[in-house]
């Protein structure tokens, strides 16, 4: 184990997870491949969704992969940043909407 948690080169080793549990890894990668194919949404649209989600879950590997993929598929810098703002707005909104829960509790116990 190295003295840091993330290494960019580990992204290329993603497939190695099959070494410890091949059956589940094969199922996951097969599913993953299917998810990103052109279907009711295009592969290009799915790439932008993945970019936004990658930021929401703050996965550096996913951000690396889908920043490249979305740009390669033709999205502009502005479009990609707007997608990140969508993730930010949803995450920020998710925090703030819980403010209602806080308000409910305070109103319940306050005089």
């Amino acid at each position, binding site marked *: 184990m190295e003295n840091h948690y993330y290494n960019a080169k580990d992204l290329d080793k993603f497939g190695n997870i099959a070494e410890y549990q091949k059956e589940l890894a094969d199922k996951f990668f097969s599913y993953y491949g299917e998810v990103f194919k*052109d279907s009711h949404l*295009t*592969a*290009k649209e799915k790439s932008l969704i993945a970019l936004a989600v990658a930021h929401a879950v703050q996965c550096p590997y996913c951000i690396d992969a889908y920043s*490249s993929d979305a*740009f*390669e*598929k*033709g999205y*502009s810098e502005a479009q990609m940043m707007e997608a990140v703002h969508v993730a930010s707005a949803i995450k920020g909104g998710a925090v703030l909407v819980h403010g209602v829960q806080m308000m409910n509790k305070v109103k319940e116990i306050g005089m």
Partner: protein
Amino acid sequence: MIKSLKVLQHPLADSENQLEVLENSLGSIHPTFNEKLVLSGMYPLRASGIDIMQLNLGKMCNQTCKHCHVDAGPDRKEMMSRSTMQFCLDVLKNSEIDVVDLTGGAPELNPDFRWLVEQIKKLGKHVIVRCNLTIILANKRFYDLPDFFKQHQVEVVSSLPSFTQDRTDRQRGDGVFEDSIKALQMLNQVGYGKEGSGLILNLVYNPAGAFLPPSQAALEKEYKMELSSRYDLVFNQLYAITNMPISRYLDYLLSSGNYSRYMDKLISAFNPASVQNLMCRNTLSVGWDGYLYDCDFNQMLDLKLSASGNQHISDFDFVILKNRNIVIKQHCFGCTAGEGSSCGGSLSV
């Protein structure tokens, strides 16, 4: 205007320096293209005939694109002479080569361009012109090119790396997108790209950066939708072409720190199924000075044919050249990555 590497006296203007980078900079980390072919059982790579003659009419161009593998530009003076063209016509007259692909630079800048097209058509051959679009608007004397192309049923293949201005201009220069759209409208007006016209207009996508092209089929669909809705433009096919790590694109890769990563991508995406359809297997490339090459990229790297004694158009011998061994180097990984790449787009494998 950006100057060519040659005028800047840049080390990469010398093809030997480019080959040195390609052959030696990666150390022992990567296999050679030669080794990949051996492992795939496809060595030596041989021509399967000569169906297409590609003529480079000169290195002069009105544009100076950042990725240009020819290092073309307004400051390049090399130009195919009429006497060299005549050698090519003599070969065409006595051969079964059906397609002549005219490229440059901007081939239309050669003063004998129209004469050559007329002579080739008299021989009953199909002509493709690699038109950069903006040349049509570069000077009044080119305004009638769409009519000239139509008159001679010339197939037009034109670069448009994006349906957006930003990406196109970043790669090809300020104002190129706007002029390209105007030129495409002029081509559409005379019938190019329109169903039933018989006038073929194909577009070329190549990545504006250090990455491989996405799916050609998906891109074509998107281009057709966007160009139609935004500019009411139509075209026939989109060719997705991989950028070759040579000349100005090699300079870009090295200066931006992307070279090793890009070569990693090309090599790891090696697709053995693309090899049988490589364009070098059925194309012969003729330089502005009449020397012969397996492809346009070998021409720019000055890698002449393996068949000694048949290296110039004046020495052309169909029987010897139709099954020649093809000269391969590390840049060949550019044509075998992913879906494969050629002057006609992906190799559909």
